[in-house]
């Protein structure tokens, strides 16, 4: 389980996170929803210790993030984190060189799944394919937790469908996933849990299926209530 407790973060005088708390379970897809600029990315950066928090606590299976954590949890930012002059093959080689959790077999499977060619240079890829390589490099790690920042934004519809397919496949199964998005429509049926974020606080945290069962409300219904209320 990933536990986020009372995170605060200021950029200059601006408070971006103002006591954010939530949890994300293993084996579930947790979706952090909020309009742009409400600190979704900052939370993920915070979990990965990529930017310091002013206060708060982050625990991954009860432990603070250390260098060992990076074999257990990985982050797929919204831009690719490899050198543009590398080929896909070289990027995969880099991952294999540094991560024990790299699963070459799964990586090759993903290449086929996304119909990518190993010898292509990252700088020559389309936006959609760049996003897929970025995803591949994260998904091919045998980690328990995956964080993805806006995996669906800014890419074409077909790439989006392909990426959505990943979530219903064994590539994600049994792992804990946190994704951020400002657009819930495509993935409403894919997610287990919703964390609604606004003005640096969590407005509501609920299970999507339970919400439909108990109150007959879709995620968008809840968002409408919460953001307009």
């Amino acid at each position, binding site marked *: 389980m990933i536990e986020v407790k009372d995170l605060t973060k200021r950029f200059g005088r601006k408070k971006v996170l103002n006591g954010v708390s939530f949890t994300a379970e293993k084996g579930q897809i947790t979706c952090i929803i909020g309009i742009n600029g409400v600190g979704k990315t900052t939370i993920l*950066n915070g979990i*990965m*210790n*990529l*930017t*310091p928090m002013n206060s708060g606590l982050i625990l991954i299976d009860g432990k603070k993030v250390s*260098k*060992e*954590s*990076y*074999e257990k949890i*990985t*982050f797929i*930012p919204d*831009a*690719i*984190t*490899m*050198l*543009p002059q590398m080929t896909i093959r070289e990027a995969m080689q*880099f991952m294999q*060189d*540094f*991560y*024990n*959790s790299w699963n070459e077999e799964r990586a090759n499977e993903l290449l086929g799944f996304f119909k990518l060619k190993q010898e292509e240079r*990252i700088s020559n890829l389309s936006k959609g394919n760049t996003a897929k390589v970025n995803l591949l490099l994260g998904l091919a790690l045998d980690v328990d937790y995956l964080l993805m920042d806006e995996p669906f934004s800014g890419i074409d519809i077909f790439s989006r469908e392909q990426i959505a397919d990943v979530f219903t496949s064994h590539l994600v199964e049994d792992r804990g996933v946190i994704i951020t998005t400002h657009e819930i429509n495509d993935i409403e049926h894919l997610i287990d849990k919703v964390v609604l974020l606004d003005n640096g606080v969590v407005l509501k945290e609920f299970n999507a299926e339970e919400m439909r069962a108990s109150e007959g409300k879709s995620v968008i219904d809840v968002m409408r209530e919460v953001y307009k209320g």
Partner: protein
Amino acid sequence: MRSYFKLVNFELGRFMKIYLVLIGITIISQIAGVIVKSRGYLSEANQAIIVNSMPKEQFLEQFGQMSMGTFTQSIWFMGPIALCIAALIFYCFFIWYRDWFGKNTFIYRLLMLPTARLHVFLAKVTTIFLLVIGLVSIQLILLPIESMILKFIVPIDLRADLGIMEIISNSRYLFVLVPDSFIQFIINYGIGFMVVFIIFTAILFERSFRLKGILLGIVYSVLSIIVFIFPLLLEIFFGVNYLYPTELFVTEVILAIIVICAAIWTSNYLINKKVTV
């Protein structure tokens, strides 16, 4: 430790293309330079002695003998060295900033490696160190080759032959790069690398605190330098001068080690706790 070596290898690879170009420029410019300079000298000599029938002794008196010493003063020789130095100084900064800038923010990857983040820092320092040593070695290999070319072109009565050590000690600049004693070598490169450590730490201050970080970085750098030159400051401002040269040397070595350790400790703290993508 294995990941540290992999990182060094990786960092070297990232600069290799430019590095090879720098080496290429140095080789071409210096070899071409020694040919051009030697032939130029020879044609001047021909002009003076054969065409203007000036006695050889008078020519030598007026123009001097051709030697590697003359060549190493020329732009053909110094130009590429200056270029390499400038490129490496620039790369001291760029080796960090290239990971942050651009659409592909590689710093995410580097900070998320399952290895101590200090390895990333040390790998970059090591890379700069190896790049410098590499260029100096190339220069040391080039010198005897250039000396041979000069001997091949200029006849023995018009030239003064110098050994490699003489060539080096004749040039003020070369002497800094390749000192004639091991101790001096340690001093020159020790100071150089202490400065690299300080610069890297200052960069991490900037990357951690951005605008405020620039100020912190400058303050930190100035403090580090003050610590290092403290005995000299005492001497200059207070006329205190009670250390023998060897004592001064030992003191400076200790101070340099203190400054470098402080830089590593500070960088370790910054890159683990404060740095931001």
